[in-house]
Structures are given as C-alpha cells and as structure tokens.
C-alpha cells in the first residue's frame, strides 16, 4: 500500500519543524529519511506514525487520510530509538502485548498468541530468550525484541527511529544486514530515520535527504551520491573538499588555482562553490597539465583507501583518498612535493547554498536530541 504525504507542516510554537513536506512511499520499499539533527526527519516519522499531529496537511494511506485516526487504526509498527521495551514484562510478554490489547473479538486465543510470539522470537533469533527481562539483554537483542514486538501487530508499515543509533559498530553492521534480509523476506514497507549517511546509502532502496525541515533530494542511493541536487546534499553525503570560487570560461577560479568544470556551469563570472570528493583527486609526483603543486602533510594508510592530506600553495588543506597501490607507486612521504588535479568537480551557485554556519547552528536545536555525525570536513582553498 502506498503512503502519500501531502503538504505536511509542523510547528512547535514559532519554530517550523517541517515546511510543506510532500513524499510518496512506495509499497514494499525500504526508505531512509536522512539528515542532520534538527532536520525534521524524526518529526516526520512520528507524524506518519501518529505519535505527533501535523499542524496541517494530509497523509493518505491507500487513499484514506490518516490524520486524526488513532494509532490503533493506523496499524503502524514503530521501533523506538531507545527501544522503549516494557521493563516489567518478559520478552515474551513484550512481544505479546500488541496481541493482548486487541479488541475482544479480534484478540487471538492464548494458544494462538503463544504460537505467534514464538514464531516472531524465532524470526528475530531470540527463541530461547522469551523468559528474560529487557534489562537482562544486550543492546542488539533489545533492538530485535522491539522489532518483533512491532511486527506482532501485523503492521502495514514498519517505522524505525534511528534503529542502530545506540549500538556499537560491529553489531550495527550485522543488524543492518539482517534487517535488510528481513525486509526483503517479509515484503514489508519500511521507513527508517538515520543521521548516518553510510547507513542510509547501504541499506535503503531510496534515500530522502532532509535539511532544516525541508526535503533536499529524493533518490536511489547511487543517484543521490553521484548526483547530489544541492550543496547541502553534497556536503552531507561523504567527505568533500570545498572550493569557493568564481566561474570564468568553464573554469572554477579560486585563489591559488583553477579547476576545470565540465558540468553544471554557473554563468560566467558567477560566485560558486566547487566540491571535489577526496577520491576524485589525482596525485602526480611531477608536474602535470592543469595540476596544482601541493605538499603532503599527513598520510594514514590504515584501511583499504589511504587518506592523504596535502597543503596547497596558500596553505589550505585538501583531503585525498588514494588506492594503496597508487600510494605505494607514488612513494609519498610527509613533506613530499606533489601535483594534484581534480578528476571531477561539482559546482553550485553560492547563493543557493546554506552557509556552513547556518548548517551547524541547526545542530542541537532539534526537538529530538541525538548524536550528531561530525560534519563532513570542509576545506576552503
């Protein structure tokens, strides 16, 4: 069943948390709402789930408007960021809760409840843990109990608020893969909120990038990563080098050099910002056409890609990622003189771009405090 979100607006006093959001969630897809703290993603999720009422707008669920409907009628499985398990109930009773509170004529018998709960516990690989209390479980196990509990009501949609936020890196990765498998297996429509771009890009069928209560971009992980629609999206999705420049004859000109620009050319003489991903920079040991001289400041060779920081002529730092064989072939050392060239750059007009100060000031003001990912490093050249 498709969910259509129409003109949803939400205010908290003077603060506008959501500006006229329009979004269609397709049957069977796994959708990520991605954005920094305070971008409105959790508010949007809670509004769809009915935990919060929108100031205006409609949510159509296969044609019915959900706004004003009770949570019971919505039948949306919601997994809370901190799980919100019932601490005084065993795992079994937690999962059974949604079945036990059904109206009498819809409520399954005790034997049927037991059967369904056991099936769900097996599904989340917690079969032997039914008799435990939440406080006796690890974070990952609690998360799976929360999931089983949400699935018990046979939800039309599954919604997850920062589902992996409170878990350590290894568990997070396992659980992510497992959740993807579960989603595919059950054919559910799922929406999850995250501030972790890697998580969104890896897990979701489509990613909705949100910023300041607005949707910046909607697309597949490949398309949003490869073709960010805005400067914000570009900066938010992965590390980036940022060059404030002016455009002149198809080149981005900035103090200390130029980058040739092949796409999205801003009109001649326009103020712009050119973004270059660290892995889109070529490094030469000697001079090369259109390459800038730079000095290697820092090399970190741990991991599949080596991270190299070089200082350009005006002393500003540029981040580069190199495959390790390339690093070895160049025989780079801290202090080496190199020449660098952008393989690919993306240019946005400067006035359309939220200033970094503004973007940063959004952090910590959100209604739902969360761990902010550090902003992508930005180097001004």
């Amino acid at each position, binding site marked *: 069943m498709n969910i259509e979100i129409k003109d949803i607006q939400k205010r908290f006093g003077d603060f506008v948390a959501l500006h006229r959001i329009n979004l269609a969630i397709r049957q069977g897809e796994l959708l990520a709402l991605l954005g920094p703290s305070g971008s409105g993603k959790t508010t949007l999720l809670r509004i769809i789930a009915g935990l919060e009422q929108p100031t205006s707008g409609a949510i159509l669920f296969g044609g019915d408007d959900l706004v004003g409907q009770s949570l019971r009628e919505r039948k*949306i499985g919601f997994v809370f960021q901190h799980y919100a398990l019932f601490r005084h109930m065993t795992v079994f009773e937690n999962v059974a809760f949604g079945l036990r509170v059904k109206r009498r004529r819809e409520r399954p018998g005790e034997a049927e409840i037991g059967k369904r709960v056991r099936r769900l516990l097996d599904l989340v690989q917690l079969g032997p843990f039914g008799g435990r209390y939440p*406080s006796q479980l690890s974070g990952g196990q609690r998360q799976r109990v929360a999931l089983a509990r949400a699935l018990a009501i046979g939800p039309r949609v599954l919604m997850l608020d920062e589902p992996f936020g409170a878990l350590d890196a290894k568990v997070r990765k396992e659980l992510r893969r497992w959740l993807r498998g579960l989603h595919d297996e059950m054919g559910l429509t799922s929406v999850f909120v995250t501030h972790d771009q890697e998580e969104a890009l890896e897990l979701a069928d489509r990613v909705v990038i949100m910023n300041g209560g607005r949707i910046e971009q909607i697309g597949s992980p490949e398309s949003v990563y490869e073709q960010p629609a805005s400067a914000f999206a570009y900066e938010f999705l992965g590390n980036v080098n940022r060059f404030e420049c002016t455009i002149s004859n198809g080149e981005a000109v900035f103090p200390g050099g130029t980058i040739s620009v092949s796409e999205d050319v801003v009109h001649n003489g326009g103020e712009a910002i050119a973004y270059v991903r660290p892995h889109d920079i070529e490094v030469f040991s000697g001079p090369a056409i259109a390459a800038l001289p730079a000095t290697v400041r820092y090399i970190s060779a741990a991991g599949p890609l080596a991270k190299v920081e070089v200082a350009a002529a005006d002393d500003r730092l540029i981040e580069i990622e190199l495959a390790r064989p390339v690093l070895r072939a160049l025989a780079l050392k801290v202090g080496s003189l190199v020449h660098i060239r952008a393989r690919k750059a993306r240019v946005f007009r400067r006035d359309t771009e939220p200033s970094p100060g503004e973007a940063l000031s959004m952090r910590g003001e959100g209604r739902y405090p969360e761990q902010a990912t550090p902003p992508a490093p930005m180097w001004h050249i």
Partner: protein
Amino acid sequence: MAAETKAPASGPAPASAAAIDEPAWVRRLLIAVGLVFIGLFLVLPLVAVFVEALSNGIGAYLAALRPPDALAAIRLTLLVAAIAVPCNLIFGVVAAWAIAKFEFTGRSLLITFIDLPFSVSPVISGLVYVLLFGAHGWFGPWLVANNVQIIFAVPGIVLATIFVTFPFVARELIPLMQEQGTEEEEAALSLGANGWQTFWRVTLPNIKWGLLYGVLLSNARAMGEFGAVSVVSGHIRGLTNTMPLHVEILYNEYNFVGAFAVASLLALLALVTLVLKSLLEWRFGHELAASRH
C-alpha cells in the same frame, strides 16, 4: 596482611587495607555514634512505650483498650486512614502523571503547591479548615443553613488528614515517572492499546513500587497525625477523637497505662507498616532493581 598495610604517618592505628578506607577507629566510632543515636532517640522511646503500657500486666493493658471511647478512637483512626489514603493515592497518581508526562502552564506552581503541606505547620493546616468551614468561616453560614457539619466532625478530620498526607504519594512518584519518560506509553499506544490499557498494563506496573512506598508512608502519617486533626476535631470523646488525640486525653488524666496502651497500638501499626515494606523489598528486590533502570 601486614605487608600490604600502609599506615598513614599521622594515623595512630595502622589498620586500613585500602587507600580509600577510613582507619578502623574512625569506622568504629562512626558506627557506634550512629547506633547510640538510634538507640537513644528511636528504640528507647519505642521500648518505653511498650514497657509502660504493660507495666501493670497484660490484663490491665487489654482492659485499657476495651472502653468504648478507646474503641471509638481506634475505629475513627482506621476510618479516616481508609478514606484519606485512597483519596491521596488517586490524587497523587493523577498529579504525578500530569507533572511528569505533560508540559503545561502552572506546572511548576503545582509542584510547589504539592510540597505545601510539608512546609506549613499542621496546626495551620487545621486552622485553614476552621477558617473555611467553621461556624464563623467563609462557608460557615451556608453549611449551618444546610445542616452540614464539617468542623468538629468526621469530615473535617478527614479533610485535615488528606491535606497533611497529600505530598507523600505524589512526591514519591514524580521523580520516578519523570525518569521513566513517555516512551513506553507511546510504544503501548503504537501497538494498539487504548489509554486505559496503557495505564493499567504499562504505567501502573512501572510505578507500583513507588506507589506502594507512598501509600505506606501516607498511611502511617494519616493514622498518626496529631496537630491538624487536633484543631478541627473538637475532642469529643467517643465521636471525634482519633487515637493520637485519645492518647493525649488519657495522659492528661494521669491514666498512664491507658495512654501508653493506645500509644503502643499506634506504634504497632507503624511497625507493621515498616515490616511490610521491608518484606516486600526483600521478596521483590530483583524486580525492583529491574524497574529502576
């Protein structure tokens, strides 16, 4: 043992095994002071009550509890507690719920007012009711005209007791409910529970221990309250005397055995309350620990 003991140069007794431990003599002194204080100020008076009550033998003790006035005082005390405690239980839960789960104007005012009975003298709490409902009070003429008696009657005693014991349940629950937040209630609602089911199945089980403590404390105070009740009661023997008031009357009449017999009964009720609390803590300690985090 001696090898790992490092006595501080100035310390007279080289006894502490770990750096953070106090020297043994300090420990012993502190424990002794604590025990002596408790013995002197808490245990001894309690023992004295029972000793005095039983000084003429168990027969005299039981006889002292048998006069109709004494029985009336016991009945009245139990009646007042039986009305005041449930009232404060309901009100305490409602107030704590409102304060912990909602943001509204007047919230901090409500928190302040809940503490009021703790900060004003019980005598004043009693006088307030006399001022409101007494014959010369604000509602006095209307009450007289309609033949309703509040002051110098059971309703006044109940009102004064409710006032005095008002904060116990709410005070116990507010921090607990604030700490627990609203996420579990939201989860229950999202799973299809209605408000009533959410309260009975999620909220109440989560606060039941705090609630029980609040009720026990509130009950102990309701039965033992003297000041406020004394002002509104009128001391009519057999009608408006609660146990504490009855104790005072007997004492003033030099009926020491009688006074201490009734007092011992009151003390016994308090002791039962404490034992009950400890028993429950011991029996459900594990569950209690789980519900606290």
